[in-house]
């Protein structure tokens, strides 16, 4: 399978999905089903995220400051959960669906718990459980997407999934505020509806995503050396291609300034008015939504690595625009479009690229390793960036990040995996 993956894209997968392989072929039903699950789940989770600050301050009268103190510790734990989730999903010949289902289920159960958690500690525990569910499901879900599509169309499959996912993230806050409007501070109604929506997501997964056992390709085809043990998962990093991808993802992650800093910089350097501040993430999401599919398709055609690096190029341009002293009216839009484009060109595309280098039997573990490494270096970048901001100010910190990004991108260019799959 692994060899088939890297070179000939048609034979093995064509047997599973005869219609796939052509450029204009439909996206696999499994990918659409997973996209629907993500869309629905994101509606549910973003409903809660959108009202949470309001609920804590106005609904419960709590002071939310210092709430994020445990975030650092939790980031480490979340990374561990991700790796464990990836490993368990690969065992027993691929239980991706069920591990992902448990992840979605945990997050769903957290919603009604918010109805009874009225103090900071229980709310913190519920949010932590919610994120554990998210950590658990991400790698198996991406493995399912990659296993359900042919190597030549993976970029597009991930693009379709990410677009649907982002659409849900945009709809969630809207749904929450419509409910709050209809009920005047009816946070309990928001949480209840969010729970119902989350259950729907789990149901779609259970009913319409084919079981992991004997997924496309089947478990039996994995060579004995690729049995899904922890050791085999670690041995994946001995594969040159995956190691290169991981190293590049880590390095580039180290120079990827977190979203909140980008929005803060937009506001400080470009003078975005306060009332628009809360809308900045929507700008990124809208660009991500619009560009995910076209850039995924482009990645299938011209090579994932090229698009992945170009995405970081877009981020570099965004940094440069934030550093210039030119303050045109359209600049915030341009920066947000580039920021969204960066996600569209890197998020799903990286998974598509990594999928090419991981055998089917270890797909979840392999993707989890890449995702976890990236998440950890991005977190490290946040800490470094915050420290640099403190010591040298925002402009110098951003200039440093831009230089680091340029250096990492140049280095990644030299590491470019030799075997890139195109359709």
């Amino acid at each position, binding site marked *: 399978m692994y060899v088939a993956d890297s070179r000939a894209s048609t034979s093995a997968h064509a047997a599973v999905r005869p219609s796939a392989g052509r450029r204009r072929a439909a996206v696999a039903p499994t990918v659409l089903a997973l996209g629907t699950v993500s869309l629905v789940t994101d509606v549910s*989770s973003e409903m*809660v*995220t959108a009202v*949470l*600050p*309001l609920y804590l*301050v*106005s609904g419960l*009268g*709590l*002071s*939310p*400051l*210092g*709430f*994020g103190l445990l*975030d650092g510790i939790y980031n480490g734990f979340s990374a561990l959960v991700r790796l464990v989730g990836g490993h368990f999903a690969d065992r027993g010949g691929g239980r991706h669906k069920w591990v992902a289902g448990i992840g979605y289920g945990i997050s769903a159960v957290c919603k009604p718990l918010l109805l009874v958690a009225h*103090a*900071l*500690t229980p709310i913190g525990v519920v*949010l932590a459980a919610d*994120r554990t569910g*998210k950590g658990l499901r991400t790698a198996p879900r991406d493995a399912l997407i990659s296993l359900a599509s042919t190597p030549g169309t993976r970029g597009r499959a991930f693009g379709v999934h990410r677009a649907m996912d982002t659409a849900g993230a945009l709809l969630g*806050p809207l749904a929450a*505020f*419509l*409910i*709050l409007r*209809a*009920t*005047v*501070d*009816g946070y*309990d*109604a928001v949480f*209840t*509806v969010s729970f*119902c*929506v989350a*259950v*729907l997501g789990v*149901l*779609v997964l259970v*009913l319409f995503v084919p079981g992991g056992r004997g997924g496309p390709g089947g478990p039996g085809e994995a060579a004995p050396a690729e049995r899904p043990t922890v050791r085999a998962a670690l041995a994946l990093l001995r594969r040159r291609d995956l190691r290169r991808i991981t190293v590049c993802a880590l390095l580039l992650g180290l120079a990827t300034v*977190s*979203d*909140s800093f980008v*929005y803060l910089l937009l506001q400080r350097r470009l003078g975005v*008015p*306060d*009332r628009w*501040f*809360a809308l*900045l*993430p929507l700008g990124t999401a809208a660009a991500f939504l619009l560009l995910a599919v076209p850039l995924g398709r482009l990645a299938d055609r011209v090579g994932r690595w090229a698009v992945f690096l170009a995405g970081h190029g877009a981020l570099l341009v965004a940094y440069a625009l934030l550093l210039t002293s030119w303050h045109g009216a359209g600049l915030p839009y341009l920066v947000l479009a580039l920021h969204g484009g960066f996600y569209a060109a890197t998020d799903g595309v990286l998974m598509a690229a990594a999928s090419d280098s991981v055998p089917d039997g270890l797909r979840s573990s392999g993707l989890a390793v890449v995702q976890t490494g990236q998440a950890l270096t991005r977190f490290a970048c946040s800490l470094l960036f*915050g420290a640099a*901001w*403190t*010591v040298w*100010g925002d402009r110098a910190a951003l200039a440093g990040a831009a230089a680091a990004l340029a250096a990492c991108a140049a280095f990644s260019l030299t590491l470019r995996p030799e075997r890139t799959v195109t359709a």
Partner: protein
Amino acid sequence: MTVRRRVLILVSAVAVLAAVGLASVLHASARADRRDHVQAGGPRVTPGAVTLRDPGRLVFRNMAWGPHRDELTAVPADAPGGPRTASGLKCLRFYAASGAGVCLQAVHGAVSDTYRALVLDSRLRTVHRYDVPGIPSRARVSPTGHFAAWTAFVGGDSYAGTDFSTRAAIVDTRSGELIPSLEAFRIVRDGHPYRAADANFWGVTFAADDRTFYATLATKGRTYLVRGDLRRRTVTTLHADVECPSLSPDGTRVAYKKRVAGLPKDAPWRLYVLDLRTMRETPLAETRSVDDQAVWKDARTVVYALPGDYGADLYEVPADGSGRAHRISSAAVSPAYLD
């Protein structure tokens, strides 16, 4: 399972889930309707004229159920539990001094709520209007009425975001000139210039000289009382572990909430008074956790809100640590004693 069967299961589940969701929305909306009806045993509220130049009166946000919920209402300062006169102006947070007021209110938009600050004249007419970047938390007006300040919580936007920050703004009520964030001020900590990306300010309180103010600075997990200078645009740390300071009428003491070690994480504060000349802290007699910026009723008494059956109730306690706390008015928040 056949596709038909699966679709059937999904459709039935959607019907059940939609029914549950709809029921919860209807239930919440019926509860909201009840709040518009006067609650038996609650304070009497009648519409009438409220002005901010009315010595001997206390103005606060009325939280009692009925048609005047959330409106600014006036009561005699010596009978705060008595009948209320409702102004018709709805505010989440409010303060007033010397005939000038500040009202932080929600603006219900089509797809989301936004917040704004109104600078009011003595007849509650809007003089200036500003966008507030998050959920309003504290409001103050200087004793002269020439400056107003507010604090807002700015929420995180990451997944299940828990990173909150605060934004404290100060406005000149005469010119309308706004300082959108105190983060633009230079910080002097322990005698040295200090810079931090995580610097947060909240809970501004003004001195009578139109230049000095006090506020809370939080950085690296610690809070400080800072003295600010509006002309030099600096803040200087004075004392650690001080939140939501409130300057006494004579400008010598600060009432504040202090995070006391060993208390539960969700109720960590106690009311204290700090003497600015001796830097001596005096715990007040209130035994519960107070999350409010207190106001001085007079030189000897502070008033603050605690959670109550209808949102919040007002309490008072002697400022010298003696006596005990008692409730002066229920279903009320954001008090201002008029002068």
